[in-house]
Structures are given as C-alpha cells and as structure tokens.
C-alpha cells in the first residue's frame, strides 16, 4: 500500500515554527544541526515509504496468525523490521550509551508519524520494544541494563508491556499475576496476561516482557504491584540465549483492525519455571510503569495523527482523480464531469481533514519540543516545561486518537462507495485508527487523568500558564486583517474554558460534574490548545507567504495574480493553505469549546437521572 506523507508540514513544524535553535545550542543536542536533521527525516521517510509501507496491506489481509503455539507475522514484516533495526529507527531518541541515537523528541515525533502512518501494526512492535527497554534503562540494576538495553534499542530483541488481565483492564489494581522471591534474589512468576501487543512474534530470537505482578504479602489494589523484567528465553552470563523461560502464547485475538499486530494471551509459569527480575522496589510497580506510560501515551497520540494524515493524503489524491457531477457554475449535462475536488462540500471535508491533521501535528510536535526543553533545563524552568508535558500527555493521547479516527471517517466518505470497499485503503485506515482510542488507557481514563491529576498539577499552574498564552495570542492577532476573526474565536474559546474551570469547582456537585464531563473537558482543552498553536503557525505562514509573493513580484491584492502564483508555486500554496486551515479550524473547530461548555455551565446531569 502506498504511503502518502505530509513531510512538508512535518518540516514546517520542526524547522519553521518550533524554536529549534535553542535545542541545538544545548550540550545534549550539540551534535545535531538543521541539515543533518533534515536528512534524518528524509531517510526515515524513505524507509517508511519503502519496506514498511510495502507490508501494510499484507498485514491487514493476511495478518498475524497463530498455529500450534506459534505466532507468524504477515509476509514482509521481517524485511521491514530488519530495515528499521539496521537503520537505527527502533529507538532514535533513546540514550546513546545504550544503543539509541539521542535525537530530540521533536524530531522523533516526525519519524514516528511516518512509520505509524506507513504501517501502524509494524510500528507497534517498535514502540513497545523501546518502551520496555526504557523501563529497564530507568529502573534496573546496571547488570540488567547491560544485558538488555542495547539489544532492545537496536532491535536485536523485541519487547512487550504486560499489564492487562481478564479482570484488570482500566483498573490495574485488580492484577492477580503472582511473583515470589527466590533465594538468588530473582522471582518466579505465575499468571495470565491478555491483549499483549507483540507478546509473541517471529521477528526476534528473544522477547523481553515488562510485567506487573503482585508479591505474596503485598496489599490489595494498585499499591501492591511490582514491576518485573521477564525474558522469553533466559540469558546466559555471556549474553547468549539459555533455557526457555516458561512464557507461552496461548492465542491471539481476532479484531477490528491492526491485523498485522499480534495481540497475545500469555501464560507465565505454567511449569513453575518463569524467572523474573525486579525493577526498582517492590510495590512501586505502578508508579514506575506510569513514568513509561507517559511516553507510550504520547506516541499513541502520534499514531492517531499518523494514520489520519495518511488517510487524508490518500483521499486528497483520490478527489483530484475521481470524475463525478457537474461544475457548480455549469450544470449542463453535456458539459463533462468534473473532478470531485471541485465540489464545495468535498473541499470543506478535505480542508477539515487537513486542518485537524495540522492541529494534531502542532499539538504533538509542541509536546515533543516541551520534552526536549525539559531535558535541557533545570530547576524552576525544568518544572515549567515538565508541567506542560504532563498536562499535554493525556490530551495528545486522547484528542489525537479521537479526532484522528474521525478524520479517517471523513476521508473514507470522500471516496463515496469505493471507500467502503477493500479496493481502496480508506477502510483499513479507519479500522486501524480506532484502537488508539482504547489501549494505553482508554480515552475516558485519559480524561480522568486530565481532570483529576493534571489540572491540579503544580496548583494548576500549567493550565493557567497555557490559557494565559492562548489568550495573549488571541489579543495579539485581534487586529490582523486576515487572522483577526479567527483570533476572536480563539478568545471566545479561552473565555469559555476559563469560565468552566472556575465555575465548576465552586458548585456543590463539583465532583460529579467533573467526572461526568471529563471527556468533554479534555476535548475543550484539545481544541483550545491546538487552535492556539495553529494560529501561531498561521501567523508564521502568512509572513512567509507575503515574502514569497514579494520575491516573485506578485501583488497579493490582485486576486487573479495571486491565484496564478499559488498555482505556480507549491511553496506559496503550502503557506496559503496553512493560513486557510487555521481559519477553518478557528471557525468550525473552536466553537465546539463554547458549545460543550453549555452542558457544564447549566449543570446538566441527565445521564445520572436516567434509569438504564
């Protein structure tokens, strides 16, 4: 399946909008420069478009299979994985001491978008491997780090995250898997996990599981959980593979999408021989896991973005080719059919798709950049950036996966009946996108994290800081002849959100209202923040467009000349379209903030009064 990227906008985010130079001046990133980072994105894109995209369709049609205890991935996955591993694309942002490349997260976001968009199923293996390795790097003894980290970051061994059990999904406090300490300090594990992505596969000779389990005398609930490293095969002192470690895949799920990704049921220790090693301290498991989950949640947001953008680009290409209907200005039957991209309704949908993709990209790359800033700063400044990262994490995850899914739905609609068939990629994108709303904590749970924890973080400073910045942008652009009306919409959204955030806590049933409206609140935050970021981008794009037109000697007030210039120059068209996307988002996306505030401010509690 061909992967159509939006590298131009990825590069706009990194090179023309974010403050990259501050990062590149820092000791941590001094090895990198703009030219190198540009090549990095180009080469990542090549791999994504090449062997990774090549097996996206076989992944869906043939899928991962399970037969006689063995998981087999679809044809082409092996080659794609080898290319990713050989290129260093498994862990481009990870610690160079352990085989990573130490790239900034804001660059990693672009790389992830390409690989996710080209083949989501394939990219999940990569994501979970580096996630598990990061846990080991952060919390294991030096001995364990030396055994596992480099092998995992370079893709020689795979990894998985084992949290979910049949009776412990959203609430991990009910995990039952047991871990009993042995004389040599290791543990023996017994239990069952379900829904484990890449819990088994045939790409790597060993798979290293990060497993949440309960020690015998631990208290019930989340506070009794500990985190363990459990390899599929034990590892000898010299790093070679030893005995089978009693981790058996008993089946894989049949599911709506991501057919290429094996979702495994794993049985640990059915023969009493499953050895694990503790990470950090006993009973600190969930806390440690949460640190790693932030990165994974953020990446699931990038998944939403990656698929949405790929789906939109495919729909855009289709709309330029498909002839149907007559032109708006000439409806005579004897005139020829026109490409559907000429129809206003199709154009509206296409720009909606594009604007939401750009909004997600702005949100994700800004979050990545905040992570980088947190890496290179200390003290209060570090806390400020880290606060924003924490605040943005659930928003990135849920907002980008939720709206990413909707974009795939709009993209499918662009194809008419053909989009519903398997002849075109639209239906696969739609099916592959949905899961991002569910795993790594459902979007409902993300919203609870936002309203319960993140709003209160640092006495609410990050939210206030952010709304302050957005409000200021609205004011700064208020008098702008092009962006003024959009800035006004941003101002209204900031006001509506601010009002809700002050009014709700003062109400008697504040707790209920917050829980009942957690998802709308997250959506309001997502729209306000990304609307703010998009307007910033539009201001940059507008200036660049004006400079380009001046260069070409085009008088922008002459409509015909402007049209001709936009048709002639892809760069001018790009900047123009960014401005238009921001205008559309401000007028069609941002008003949803005020609309959702209505239920909150009225104190509507109908769902609780309903007898289901």
């Amino acid at each position, binding site marked *: 399946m061909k992967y159509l990227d939006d590298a131009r906008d990825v590069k706009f985010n990194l090179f023309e909008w974010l403050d990259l130079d501050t990062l590149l001046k820092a000791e941590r990133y001094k090895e990198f420069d703009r030219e*190198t980072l540009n090549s990095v994105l180009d*080469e990542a894109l090549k*791999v994504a478009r090449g062997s990774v995209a090549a097996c996206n369709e076989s992944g869906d049609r043939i899928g991962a299979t399970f037969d006689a205890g063995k998981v087999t991935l679809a044809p082409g996955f092996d080659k794609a994985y080898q290319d990713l591993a050989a290129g260093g694309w498994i862990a481009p942002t990870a610690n160079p001491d352990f085989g990573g*490349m130490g790239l900034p997260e804001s660059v990693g976001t672009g790389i992830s978008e390409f690989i996710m968009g080209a083949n989501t199923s394939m990219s999940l293996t990569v994501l979970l491997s580096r996630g598990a390795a990061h846990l080991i790097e952060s919390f294991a003894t030096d001995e364990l780090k030396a055994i596992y980290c480099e092998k995992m970051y370079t893709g020689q061994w795979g990894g998985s995250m084992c949290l979910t059990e049949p009776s412990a999904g959203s609430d991990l406090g009910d995990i039952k898997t047991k871990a009993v300490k042995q004389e040599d300090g290791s543990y023996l594990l017994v239990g069952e996990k379900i829904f484990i992505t890449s819990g088994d596969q045939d790409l790597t000779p060993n798979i290293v599981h990060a497993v949440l389990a309960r020690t015998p005398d631990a208290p019930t609930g989340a506070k009794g959980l500990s985190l363990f490293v459990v390899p599929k095969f034990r590892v000898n002192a010299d790093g070679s593979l030893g005995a089978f470690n009693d981790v058996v895949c008993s089946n894989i799920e049949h599911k709506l999408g991501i057919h290429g990704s094996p979702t495994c049921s794993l049985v640990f220790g059915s023969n009493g021989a499953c050895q694990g090693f503790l990470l950090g301290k006993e009973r600190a498991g969930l806390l440690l896991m949460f640190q790693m989950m932030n990165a994974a949640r953020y990446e699931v947001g990038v998944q939403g973005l990656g698929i949405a953008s790929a789906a939109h680009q495919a729909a855009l290409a289709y709309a330029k080719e498909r002839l149907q209907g007559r032109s708006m200005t000439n409806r005579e039957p004897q005139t020829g059919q026109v490409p559907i991209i000429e129809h206003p309704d199709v154009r509206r949908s296409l720009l909606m798709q594009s604007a939401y993709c750009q909004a997600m990209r702005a949100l994700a790359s800004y979050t990545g950049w905040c992570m980088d800033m947190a890496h290179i700063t200390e003290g209060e400044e570090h806390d400020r950036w880290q606060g924003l990262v924490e605040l943005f994490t659930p928003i990135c995850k849920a907002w980008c996966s939720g709206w990413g899914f909707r974009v795939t739905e709009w993209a499918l609609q662009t194809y008419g009946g053909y989009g519903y068939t398997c002849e075109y990629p639209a239906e696969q994108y739609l099916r592959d996108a949905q899961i991002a709303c569910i795993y790594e904590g459902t979007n409902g749970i993300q919203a609870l994290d936002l309203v319960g924890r993140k709003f209160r973080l640092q006495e609410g400073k990050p939210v206030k800081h952010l709304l302050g910045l957005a409000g200021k942008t609205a004011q700064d652009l208020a008098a702008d002849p092009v962006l003024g009306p959009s800035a006004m919409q941003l101002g209204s959204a900031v006001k509506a959100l601010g009002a809700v955030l002050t009014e709700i806590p003062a109400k008697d049933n504040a707790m209920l209202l917050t829980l009942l409206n957690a998802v709308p609140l997250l959506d309001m935050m997502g729209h306000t923040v990304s609307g703010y970021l998009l307007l910033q981008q539009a201001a940059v794009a507008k200036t660049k467009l004006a400079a380009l037109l001046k260069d070409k000697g085009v008088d922008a007030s002459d409509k015909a000349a402007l049209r001709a210039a936009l048709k002639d120059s892809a760069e001018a068209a790009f900047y123009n379209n960014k401005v238009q996307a921001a205008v559309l988002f401000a007028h069609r996306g941002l008003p949803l903030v005020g609309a959702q505030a209505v239920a909150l401010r009225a104190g509507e509690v109908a769902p609780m009064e309903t007898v289901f």
Partner: protein
Amino acid sequence: MNVLVCVKHVPDTETRVKVAADGLHLDLGEANWVVNPYDEYAVEQGLQLKEKLGGEVTVITVGGDDATKSLRQALAMGADKAVLCSDPAFEDADPWSTARILAAAAAKLPCDLILSGKHGVGGDNQQVGSLLGQLMGIPVVTVVTGMDLEGTSLMLKREIEGGTEVVKASLPCVISCQKGLNEPRYPSLKGIMAAKKKEITAWKAADLGLDPATLAPSFQLKKMELPPPRPAGKILSGEIPDQVKELVKLLHDEAKAI
C-alpha cells in the same frame, strides 16, 4: 579494491516541471533534489565490493554546492570519501565536458573500478559513463544487472533487448549500473551522523588542470517545451458492436494508433 562512484544530483522525478521564462532552462526552484536513482545501485555495488574485498569507496559529482546533499547521502550509505567538482565554468557542462572533468579527477584518485548509473534522470543523455571510459582508455560496459569478480576480471550481465548478455571485462573499467543489480541499502541514522564528519574534497577547474574555455557546451540548446496536456478521455456509448466500430475508426483516424 578502490572504487570510484559517479553520482549526480537530480530533481526528484515526482517534481512538477516548469519551463523557465527564457524557454531554455527548467525552473527547478522548488524541486526536491535527490541522488540519481541509478547511481544508488552504483553506490551499493561499490559498498558491497568494499565489504568483500576491502579498499575504499569514493563518490564524486560534478555540480553546484547544493550537490553536497547527494554526496552526503552516499557517505551516509557508507562511502568513505567524497569529491565535489564545482566551478562556475562547469555550470553548463554537457556530457562531454562532464566526462572530461570526471576523467581529470579520476586521474588524481586511486581507483580500480569506476561505477556510474546507467543514465542520469532528467537529462537522460546516457553518455557520461561511456565517454569517461573512452577518455581514460579503459573498457566500458553499460546497463549492467549482474557482477561477479573472477581473478582480475569482472563477469558482467547486461540487459539487452529480450535477453541478457554476459561480458568479461578486465580491470580497471567503467561500469554503468541498471536496476536489478542490487537493492540499495537505506542510509542508517549512524551513517547519517558519521557522514557529517567525513570530509568532502572540492576541486575547481584549475585543480584539475582544465582550461575553462574548453568546457563550453559543444551544442546549443534552442528551446525547451513541455509535452502538450493530455486531452480529455472519450467514453463511447450505444450498442457494443457500434462502439467497437467507432473505437476502431477513432484509433485509426484520430489517435493514428492503427
């Protein structure tokens, strides 16, 4: 074995081509520039030979400063050294002049084998490799899809109309590479970072002992034009036998295909 690989910096074939206002040049201001795809086979072949036999791979290009981007890509794939032949006098170099520049540079470099792509996309002249061999007085084998070393000779497979030809050539020689010869590797992240540190040698006309006056194009470009836009398709209607008759008539009279 020391291998010299000629690479060209060319506009991506997906570029929307426009003719510049003077009607003599292409307006490539917004083009995305890449390594000529056929040259990637040449680079890969050089790297494979180096991995098997030792020695060094040097990549060379004739072009402007922006051509360093393509040299860096070849270095990122694993080439050891790079040479940029750049001089205002080289700007309008035709294939003959390009071959002369490359021959002058090759004479200064240790090389047992010279590899190039079968042709450079865009210009599509298919001349530089052959002219280079001629100028250096060494064998030239073009459109190669297979290569094996036998002692001090190469056994080469060539693509010919409807089949393959097997040719033996002694070293040193010039080989032009065709799709199918190998599968070019992707540059790795490590390779990209390492490429940044590798030196690119820049040579001007004077460094190569070339007199700029002799590098003027040997032909004059008169005009460039785009192919006419594709006319709208026709959908025939009516009974099938009538449609077939109509189709035959159109193919004969309008399309002049039969």
